[in-house]
């Protein structure tokens, strides 16, 4: 096990800079998720830690050692690829033992470690099969087994669940988290799925356009997003963001005044051009308040999601119960004041 540090790391492909100076500290045993939209550089960053991409400037440290110029195989890392990257001509056993056979480890040791990893992942009965004879979930487990067998300092996962169907994804999510709780190996995990990030991570690193937007525990990011991007990226359905001007009464949004707690208004000081942020689950039904036209109702069983319009702005309301509302009807909602966010229009940062 080992800590991982990124110090002002950059990456350029020709004249295009895709990673623009990233600083992240990952503690020993931590489960860190890199998340962001496509093209934000999260996979490139992971590949730089893995040694599959050169580092243009800055330092990558594993433990206390700068590994910039150290080849992958000497970094003591293991990686699980999105496509699993199993060797198709080798059995599950040989796939998992591949790294040990390269190291010329004694056969008894290889067998013992492969069997232990197979037992951990429930793969004992599949050891003599070939990858083509396995289902997607089984292949995923073999790919993880191959990583576990090496007992590396750091696990790297590159969108490992994107090729699985929804149900299996939830199951594997739980398994990976359980595995981490058992092994306590430092893990860096790339995904674009914010649910994976929220449910699995000790710490989330939100990235956009090659820069880190915010780093923190999942609930911190949910409760106190640093800016509009993080606010909308974390949480599902995404936070409602409404344009407006801050007045003594609240935020003036068209004809509607959105209520703002006093403390928040004082924090805003002179700033007038703001965005008003409220999560769908922090809007409650009321007899009076903000008038919303309910356009589409999505009952999910546990919740009811209402897609509507406030004035002319689309707004989403998530009610934690079943409600009897028909499409097209008018409802009133009230924001929970503690959960109202204001963002500076120009900097997009949270006030």
């Amino acid at each position, binding site marked *: 096990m080992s800590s991982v540090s990124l110090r002002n790391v950059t990456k350029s492909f020709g004249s295009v800079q895709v990673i623009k100076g990233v600083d992240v500290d990952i503690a020993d045993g931590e489960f860190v998720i890199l998340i962001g939209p496509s093209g934000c550089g999260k996979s490139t960053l992971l590949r730089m830690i893995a040694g*599959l991409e050169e580092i243009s400037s800055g330092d990558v440290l594993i433990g206390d050692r700068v590994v910039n110029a150290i080849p992958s*195989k000497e970094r003591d890392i293991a*990686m699980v*690829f999105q496509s699993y*990257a*199993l060797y*198709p001509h080798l059995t599950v056993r040989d796939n998992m033992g591949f790294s040990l056979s*390269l190291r010329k480890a004694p056969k008894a040791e290889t067998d013992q470690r492969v069997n232990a990893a197979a037992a951990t992942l429930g793969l004992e009965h599949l050891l003599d099969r070939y990858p083509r004879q*396995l289902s997607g979930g089984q292949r995923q487990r073999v790919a993880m087994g*191959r990583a576990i067998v090496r007992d590396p300092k750091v696990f790297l996962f590159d969108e490992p669940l994107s090729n699985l169907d929804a149900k299996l994804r939830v199951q594997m999510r739980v398994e990976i988290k359980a595995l981490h709780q058992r092994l306590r190996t430092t893990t860096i995990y790339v995904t674009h799925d914010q649910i994976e990030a929220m449910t699995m991570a000790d710490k989330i690193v939100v990235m956009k356009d090659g820069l880190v937007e915010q780093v923190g525990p999942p609930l911190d990011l949910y409760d106190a997003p640093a800016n509009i991007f993080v606010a909308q990226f974390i949480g599902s359905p995404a936070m409602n963001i409404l344009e407006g001007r801050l007045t003594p009464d609240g935020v003036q949004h068209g004809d509607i005044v959105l209520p703002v707690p006093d403390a928040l208004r004082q924090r805003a000081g002179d700033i007038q051009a703001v965005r008003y942020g409220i999560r769908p689950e922090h809007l409650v039904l009321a007899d009076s308040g903000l008038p919303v036209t309910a356009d589409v109702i999505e009952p999910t069983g546990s919740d009811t999601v209402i897609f509507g319009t406030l004035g002319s702005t689309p707004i989403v309301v998530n009610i934690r119960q079943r409600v009897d509302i028909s499409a097209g009807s008018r409802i009133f909602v009230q924001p929970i004041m503690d959960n109202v966010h204001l963002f500076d229009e120009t900097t997009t940062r949270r006030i």
Partner: protein
Amino acid sequence: MPKPVTKLLKAVCVALVLVWSLVPILMIVVSSFKADRDIFAAPPRLLFEPTFNNYLTLWNNWGDFFHGLVNSAIITIGATLLAVVTSALAGYAYSRFRSPTLAFSAFFLIFIRLIPPIVITLPLFPAVNVLRLNDTHILMIVLYATFFVSLGTLVMRTFMDQIPRELDEAAHIDGASRLQILRKVIFPLSAQGMVAVAVFVIVFAWNEFLFAFIFTTTNAKTAPLVISEMYGAVEGVEWGVLFAASTLQLLPVLIFVILAQKHLVAGLTAGATKG
């Protein structure tokens, strides 16, 4: 079109192709067991008394032919190994690396195939003489291999392009050196491509006439050359013996292609990634 008609048409087409390609071979093989008078009988005799006389005569009078077969075998095996190994390594380079030099050289891989072999052969002759490589096995091995490395490289590159790059990366992280990645991952997975290249080279090198005619005289003389000598023998052509020699010449390559066919079809890369 109704189905039975399509089926019938297909069958007829296949039959035509089979007749087209098999009848000459059949004629050669069958004729090699016929006495001379039966060979060109019209109408052809389907029932005849088989004889091994042609093979005996071949063994007794044309020892040169068997010497030629041995030469052909040495040269073919050598050229095939050289061409397959070179093409596989070059194919890997073209598949995994990008550079202007590589892209430019790829053009020449194709370009060299556009020139008739004789154009390359004649200027080579003085060079070969200076190097004192005339009539040697090594010369023929290098010549035949060189002739197929361009096509072989393109074939191997295509096969290797289909091997996901993640496999290289996974092996790299697992601790494999570049050579180990090639040996343990890339080569096993591109075996089909190697078989395909080998088939090309073997068939070419085993049957080739022009280069052999120009560059060999006695020491490295190949079997097709000896057969051509039989054709022009002073005492008149012994057709039966000629067909016996042709049959022997035909057999190894036929057996190899039939054996290799299974490999050409097998789907080795299935299951590598999500698939």
